[in-house]
């Protein structure tokens, strides 16, 4: 590789903007994604999707499809009779293909495997299914109304990784509720000088990882290999093993590069269906989703919410009541966890006398909803923060000052029994505000334009379950390989893991290699999400590298005949007090003789005391802090985001450039979520905008003129070198800052996205012209 970009060796590898290790492969088109692989004998799969949102399945006739040219196998529900065919990590509510009835338009009903994609696509149209249509509950209002059709008649069993404690019985279409109440609510509201309340709506959003969900399944001698675009290979392995009745070590999951994830590839997606059709075909099969298929594979929950906030005349926040209903679609996926996280985000990071929160996860006859970057926090932060701003406005207080007055300080309790606050929120929001020129008012707007500024602060429970393992290998030439189960989905995990190992070993970071996960060889890692990789998997890598370093020191002590405490790791080797140095290669060879052997180091992160439950957590609090300045056109309702600021409070940036890139990407996604992204479902449950022509994501032209990311390094993270994760918070914070900036311009809004029509209508209501 050419010497390109900033680079560093040895201890300075940590904290340096080392060039991405995967850059050259990706820049030359050589990086392999799942869809680029060809397994010998591989067939191409096509899915028959239900045309209706809710129906009993009558007769199924696949004979014409089975006889079609090039077709090797057709899978229908009848082929699953030897399995318990339900999966779902939170609730085991989803059959591999629709069984008995369909619950959303687009639900897979059958799968064809054929010699070519064209043959498979053609054969799907020849499968004959009878549907006996049922009343449809599309959307929250329909699903929550009295006498609403039930999406699931029976309560599903809990899944293997729900982490939610005891699950109560289902209540109509509500499959899970999360609630808490603290303090004397009556008193808090009785004492209030001002009470702000409102009803709010958040849209369904498509994550749009540009690489759609792709899986190849291959059975050999009863063992199953999956190549899959998945973020959590070890959790997928677990679910697949249970589903097909296999020991864990007979399910092998290989994860090539991912073309984005953002939560859309978390947990189990296309793997059960692909494995099932490959089992029937007796040959490897690939399923590669089209965009319209990925949109109904997973999405962000749409939500309605009510909130009330009470404050004293001096701006002291007293009480908050919030209730939210999140539409999880026809299957729970990660909906219960999203719901609980939304509930935790409802109070915001403030000191309350009393709070009461309830959040409900609701089945509807639409495509399933699961994880999307900063879930829960994105749903609630804009609501809570808009109420804080409204309190300040009514009391004539500065909106930054009311936050200084009420924000939690480091060490204060965020929720009972959980981790206290581990970040300086006041310092963070001051940085975000300063970066948009606070307290200066917005520059005078041009004719027919209004301008405003806003900030927002929130917290996101990050780290998920703290279990990660890593192995570091050092060969007799001094080269280092890190085996760690974190998925590279674009965030730069492989680069950062290499920096951590290089930092411990004082090795040249260019000699440290991190490859993709193969569950057959890579040690367990729980998941890639919740901003946990650097913090949790990174800590395992740090410990594994330290284990190798200990072996190096041991050998050096023997060879240099020096007491270990007088040995120092130096770039690429170990040095004694007199300055004699042995290189890593010399030490490995000295230990084993000739050119053989390798040093193996193991690192493990597991719950330290307690059970590692979510209630005891989180691993750390990710801050969600942003500022925004917007301009709205009073004639058209079009909003232009002029500038944004975000704060990445990361303890220690392992790679500052990659930290900033995370915030920039999250900012643009937040801008899209706030301004125009919305999946539209018809009352009959059909997704109306299922292409990129009608579902728009941010493009080059949408970049704010200024996007500033401030990196805060207080060394207060639980990860390696005091690091903690980042990358999600900005997505929760930016929509809230935009909403607050728009209200500052005179246009308070309770419904996202802030489409021109919606904003224009609101301005007419408010007699703004």
């Amino acid at each position, binding site marked *: 590789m*050419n010497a390109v970009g900033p680079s560093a060796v040895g201890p300075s590898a940590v904290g340096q903007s080392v060039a991405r290790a995967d850059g050259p492969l990706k820049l030359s088109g050589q990086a392999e994604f799942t869809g680029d692989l060809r397994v010998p004998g591989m067939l191409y799969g096509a899915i028959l999707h239900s045309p209706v949102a809710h129906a009993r399945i009558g007769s199924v006739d696949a004979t014409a499809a089975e006889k079609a040219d090039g077709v090797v196998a057709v899978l229908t529900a009848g082929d699953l009779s030897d399995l318990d065919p339900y999966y779902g990590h939170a609730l085991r509510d989803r059959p591999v293909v629709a069984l008995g009835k369909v619950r959303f338009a687009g639900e897979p009903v059958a799968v064809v495997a054929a010699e070519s994609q064209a043959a498979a696509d053609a054969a799907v149209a020849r499968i004959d299914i009878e549907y006996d249509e049922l009343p449809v509950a599309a959307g929250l209002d329909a699903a929550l109304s009295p006498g609403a059709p039930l999406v699931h008649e029976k309560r599903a069993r809990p899944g293997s990784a729900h982490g939610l404690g005891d699950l109560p019985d289902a209540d109509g279409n509500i499959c899970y509720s999360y609630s808490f109440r603290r303090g004397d609510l009556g008193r808090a509201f009785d004492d209030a000088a001002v009470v702000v309340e409102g009803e709010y709506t958040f849209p369904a959003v498509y994550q749009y990882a540009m690489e759609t969900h792709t899986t190849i399944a291959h059975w050999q001698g009863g063992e199953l290999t999956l190549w899959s675009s998945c973020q959590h290979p070890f959790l997928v392995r677990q679910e697949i093993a249970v589903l097909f009745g296999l020991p864990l070590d007979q399910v092998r999951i290989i994860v090539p590069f991912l073309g984005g994830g953002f939560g859309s590839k978390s947990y189990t997606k296309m793997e059960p269906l692909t494995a099932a059709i490959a089992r029937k075909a007796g040959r490897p099969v690939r399923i590669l989703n089209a*965009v319209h298929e990925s949109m109904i594979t997973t999405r962000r929950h749409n939500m309605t919410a009510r909130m009330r906030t009470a404050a004293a005349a001096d701006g002291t926040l007293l009480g908050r009541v919030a209730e939210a209903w999140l539409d999880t679609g026809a299957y729970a996926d990660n909906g219960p966890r999203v719901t609980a996280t939304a509930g935790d985000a409802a109070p915001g990071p403030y000191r309350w006398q009393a709070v009461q929160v309830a959040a409900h996860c609701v089945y509807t006859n639409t495509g399933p909803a699961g994880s999307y970057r900063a879930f829960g926090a994105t749903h609630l932060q804009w609501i809570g923060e808009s109420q804080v701003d409204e309190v300040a406005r009514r009391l004539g207080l500065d909106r930054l000052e009311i936050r200084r007055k009420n924000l939690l300080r480091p060490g204060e309790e965020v929720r009972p029994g959980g981790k206290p606050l581990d970040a300086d929120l006041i310092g963070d929001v001051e940085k975000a505000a300063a970066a948009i020129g606070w307290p200066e008012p917005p520059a005078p707007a041009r004719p027919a334009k209004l301008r405003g500024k806003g900030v927002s602060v929130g917290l996101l429970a990050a780290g998920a379950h703290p279990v990660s393992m890593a192995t570091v290998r050092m060969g007799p030439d001094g080269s280092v390989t890190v085996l760690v189960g974190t998925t590279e989905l674009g965030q730069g995990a492989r680069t950062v893991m290499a920096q951590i190992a290089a930092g411990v070993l004082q090795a040249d970071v260019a000699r440290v290699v991190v490859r993709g996960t193969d569950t057959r060889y890579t040690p367990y890692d729980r998941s890639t999400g919740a901003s946990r990789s650097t913090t949790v998997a990174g800590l395992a890598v740090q410990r594994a590298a330290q284990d190798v370093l200990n072996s190096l020191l041991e050998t050096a002590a023997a060879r240099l005949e020096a007491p270990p405490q007088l040995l120092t790791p130096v770039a690429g080797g170990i040095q004694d007090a007199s300055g004699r140095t042995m290189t890593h290669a010399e030490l490995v060879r000295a230990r084993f003789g000739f050119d053989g052997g390798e040093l193996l180091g193991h690192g493990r992160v597991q719950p330290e005391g307690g059970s590692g439950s979510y209630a005891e957590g989180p691993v750390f609090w990710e801050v969600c802090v942003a500022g925004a300045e917007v301009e709205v056109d009073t004639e058209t309702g079009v909003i232009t985001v002029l500038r944004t600021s975000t704060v990445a409070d990361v303890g220690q940036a392992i790679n500052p450039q990659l930290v900033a*890139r995370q915030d920039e990407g999250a900012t643009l996604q937040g801008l899209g979520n706030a301004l125009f992204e919305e999946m539209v479902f018809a009352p009959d449950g059909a997704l109306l905008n299922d292409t*990129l*022509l009608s579902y728009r994501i941010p493009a*080059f032209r949408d970049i704010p003129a200024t996007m500033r990311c401030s990196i805060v390094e207080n060394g207060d993270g639980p990860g390696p070198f005091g690091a903690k994760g980042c990358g999600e918070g900005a997505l929760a914070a930016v929509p809230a800052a935009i909403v607050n900036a728009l209200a500052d311009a005179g246009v308070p809004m309770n419904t996202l996205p802030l489409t021109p029509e919606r904003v224009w209508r609101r301005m007419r209501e408010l007699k703004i012209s």
Partner: protein
Amino acid sequence: MTETIRATVNGTPFEGEVPAQELLLDFLRDRLGLTGAKQSCEVQVCGVCTVLVDGDPVSSCCYLAADIDGREVETIEGLAGSDFHRRAADAFMRHAAVQCGFCTSGMLLTAKALAARGLRGDRDEIAAAMSGNLCRCTGYVSILDSLAEILSETA
């Protein structure tokens, strides 16, 4: 039905039969094994399938393989190793303008066409000209910084 075509792909002549309805993207990926062009939106919006045909960027997901008859096709595999690619890759690396990498080859090929058309370093013009290439990871700023640098250097 098939059509006989004679074309050049990354400088290598191709002569043979292609199904009349085969898309250029599938021809490149499945027949020639050139997987640097990716499939995503399939409706000519996202730009990850961008390749150059006689120097013009096209969405190979919406372009028939038969229509390359008599033309020259350049993909990322052909661009790699060129002087333009070396400078572009250097800028993308320094600005960390690559994340998942799924959009990257399309970005580079569009940029090459823009350079050939004489577009220089004006950021607004570049942003407008790049409207057919989406990226969900980066927030675009680092790509724009890279492109502004590359295009301003292209005399």
